[in-house]
């Protein structure tokens, strides 16, 4: 059995590309008004709960301040990102990937389970190389992937839709649930940086655990170790 299914692999790379473009064009959009507010309105920096730095041109799409072009990149990639996320969720429920690999068990939510997971990740511990060790995700991975796939990524879509005045006419309740348009905008920013944090950790984990093999298995599918009961 492949370590990563074809659907997972296709989604992973489409999502990676879309998220990188969304994040970097989002930094340009953030530069347009570098203050975040709670509630429905907010325009006076004196009322802001956070003043955001000006992101340098090398970190943004495009590589100069151009709000209109950044919005084009952002709103186009948003389609790819949201549709791919939706199809991935439908597929992982149909194929039972979600229930098999991502859904947590009650025992995953214990400090002991987390400690074991982290210990297994320490340098020098090559998890699963020994036969008989479960190659499915460990509790910390299940929780992390579950939060990213089930909370952070969908919240990017919902908070993004809520900022759109045209969409709001169709679903005003979405803006209300999120606490108003400026709250939705703030949450969009907060979840984006949460995802950035995951991205950094995710890359670090890959780099620490045989990066070439990991990259290869996310492209070709790789192999699950024998004796795996996952």
């Amino acid at each position, binding site marked *: 059995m492949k370590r990563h299914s074809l659907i997972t692999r296709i989604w992973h790379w489409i999502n990676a590309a879309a998220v990188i473009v969304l994040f970097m064009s989002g930094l340009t959009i953030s530069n347009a008004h570098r203050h975040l507010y709670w509630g429905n309105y907010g325009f006076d920096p004196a009322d802001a709960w956070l003043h955001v730095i000006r992101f340098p041109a090398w970190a943004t799409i495009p590589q100069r301040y151009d709000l209109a072009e950044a919005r084009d990149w952002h*709103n186009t990639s948003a389609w790819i990102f949201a549709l791919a996320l939706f199809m991935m969720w439908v597929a992982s429920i149909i194929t039972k990937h979600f229930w098999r690999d991502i859904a947590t068990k009650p025992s995953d939510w214990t400090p002991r389970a987390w400690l074991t997971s982290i210990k297994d990740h320490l340098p020098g511990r090559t998890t699963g190389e020994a036969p008989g060790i479960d190659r499915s995700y460990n509790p910390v991975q299940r929780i992390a992937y579950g939060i990213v796939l089930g909370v952070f990524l969908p919240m990017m879509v919902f908070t993004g839709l809520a900022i759109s005045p045209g*969409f709001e006419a169709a679903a005003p309740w979405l803006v209300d649930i999120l606490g108003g348009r*400026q709250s939705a*905008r703030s949450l969009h920013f907060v979840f984006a940086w949460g995802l950035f944090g995951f991205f950094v950790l995710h890359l670090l984990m890959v780099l620490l655990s045989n990066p070439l093999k990991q990259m290869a298995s996310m492209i070709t599918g790789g192999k699950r170790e024998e004796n795996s009961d996952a």
Partner: protein
Amino acid sequence: MPEIKRRTLLAGMAALPAAACTELAETGPAGDIFDAAEDWHRAAHRTLASRQALAPEYAPDERSPDIKGNGTLRIETPEYRAAKANDFADWRLSVTGLVDNPLSLSMDDLRALPQRTQITRHDCVEGWSAIAEWTGPQLSALLDAAKLRKEANFIIFRCADVLYDRAYYESVDLIDAYHPQTIIAHDLNGAPLPEKNGAPLRMRIERQLGYKHAKYLTGIEALASFDDIEGGKGGFWEDLGDYQWYAGI
């Protein structure tokens, strides 16, 4: 892998898509894809919300302390200064183009029409929002009085302000033109519009971003197409900065 190499690799991975994006956006295909994505957003909004679906309206105590002015804040032309000094008593709003009955309306004519008062949120493309009460006649009443012709597809708003040597203007399709909250506002929070907010008249296009809400309104023109108007993209910011004509997102 040594730390420095890893960092170089990461920076390279970040720079690669950015450079590719700049390259792509400046060539043809990306522009077409952007236009298609904008059309899909508009089609999705129009499918999910009815033509008449309203933007949220707020209670008086939910208004923001002020409504920020943006774009033109003051008009220096002698004509505008004289009109303002005269409290806009001689200001005219024309309704022309593909209409059977062209109009030229005074401020009193506009105030004599049935009025709509709405407390709505103004969302700027930059990201900020303000909430205020706007009063004025519905655009639909003017278009009906002017007897809009069947060939008309777009309504163009002509303005008294000039930015970067170009006359400000904007346009909407007939769905937004006939939307119940699309009004020609003359009052803001119960008083005549201040100059920074577009005195004496401005559009409210409540389901779109602020740059669609043309200020210092002088004329309303019905057209079949805006290809031959100014830069041909349907609005001042659309022409100048390639902003999206559909600003519902």
